[in-house]
């Protein structure tokens, strides 16, 4: 079933962050807490799904020479919609994610999928591809965010997990902690990939 594969490949085999090394800027910047990772993941997934869908629908109307600027225009439109809607209806999350919301437009995952997949496949498959990649992206952000938040602040999703005697390792929510955590997560993903391949 091609469709199911289109969705599940985004989780591990073609995980946009851990395997394809795309979308790194928001991954490191917003994962100081799990809830921010979740928020960014959902916002990016919305933009990814909508732009994949629209790009796939308008592909007969797009002259090849200017396809990249047109894709960018489509993506930027949905990013702006996301920015305005978030500012109006989820202001706290909008303030927390800051400039990284408009930066979704240069998230290489979105332009990458528009060019590599959506411009060459049917709208349905493009939609599912967007959902799969977006889900993989969100999952990665939440796991990384939860890890950094737990060690760096003693909480997960704001809930105190570590006891009162726990001294949070501030480094984890600072930039070095982000880089180090991601490095180990990529290695972990590779280990999992190898295991699944051996069993196959």
């Amino acid at each position, binding site marked *: 079933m091609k469709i199911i594969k289109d969705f599940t490949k985004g989780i591990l085999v073609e995980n946009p962050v851990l395997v394809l090394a795309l979308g790194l*800027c928001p991954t490191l910047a917003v994962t100081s807490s799990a809830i921010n990772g979740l928020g960014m993941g959902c916002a990016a997934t919305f933009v990814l799904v909508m732009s994949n869908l629209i790009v796939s629908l308008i592909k007969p109307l797009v002259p090849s020479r200017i396809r990249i600027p047109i894709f960018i*225009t489509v993506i930027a439109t949905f*990013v702006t919609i996301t920015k305005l809607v978030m500012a109006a209806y989820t202001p706290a999350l909008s303030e927390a994610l*800051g400039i990284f919301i408009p930066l979704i437009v240069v998230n*290489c995952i979105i332009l990458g999928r528009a060019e590599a997949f959506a411009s060459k496949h049917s709208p349905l498959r493009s939609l599912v591809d967007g959902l799969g990649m977006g889900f993989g992206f969100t999952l990665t952000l939440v796991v990384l965010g939860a890890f950094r938040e737990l060690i760096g602040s003693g909480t997960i999703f704001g809930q105190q997990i570590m006891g009162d005697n726990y001294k949070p390792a501030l480094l984890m929510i600072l930039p070095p902690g982000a*880089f180090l955590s991601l490095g180990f997560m*990529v290695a972990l993903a590779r280990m999992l990939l190898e295991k699944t391949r051996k069993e196959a």
Partner: protein
Amino acid sequence: MGNLLIIAISAILINNFVLSRFLGLCPFVGVSKKTETAIGMGMAVIFVMTLASAVTWVIWTYFLSPGTSNIFWIIANKFGSQTPAASFDLHYLETIAFILVIASLVQFVELVLQKTSPSLYSALGIFLPLITTNCAILGVAELNTMSLGYNFLEALVHGFAAGVGFTLALIMMSGIRERLQFAPVPRLMKGLPIAFIVAGLMSMAFLGFSGLKF
């Protein structure tokens, strides 16, 4: 003058765009395998960032933001009654406008490089058009206009210095990675993971610049 120097030193060392603000990571990880490519990419990015800062500032101040410098407001005012200063608030078009400006600038740089330095052009390959998706460029444009409200000179200096900081981090990273190829790295960590660990250590080192005074 002192203020501009503070903005510059801050963007290069203390709040380095890559190691502290997390902007410009995709090319940082992708292009840093060889030092010559890194230097070429760095120069291109400095050029685009400076030019983009200037152009986006002009577009923001005179076309998009509400207020008395908005060109549309000036024209409307000339034609009659007092239009309130906030009537031409096009700030929501900022993302589209900025990213298209950046895409055009990168296209322009590509053409120039093709004519003047074909070897660098082919060495950079696919990474040259990818400068468009370098979040550092859009990031600095956003910071200059929407977040920090710099004036033109401050925006220009900030853009230039941010590019220099990016190049600095990139060249350092490529130097380390070139040597890392001959080091006994555990199999699972080879390539991307060890690059991130190195970046984390560099980021820690750069934390030492806090409290820099002169």
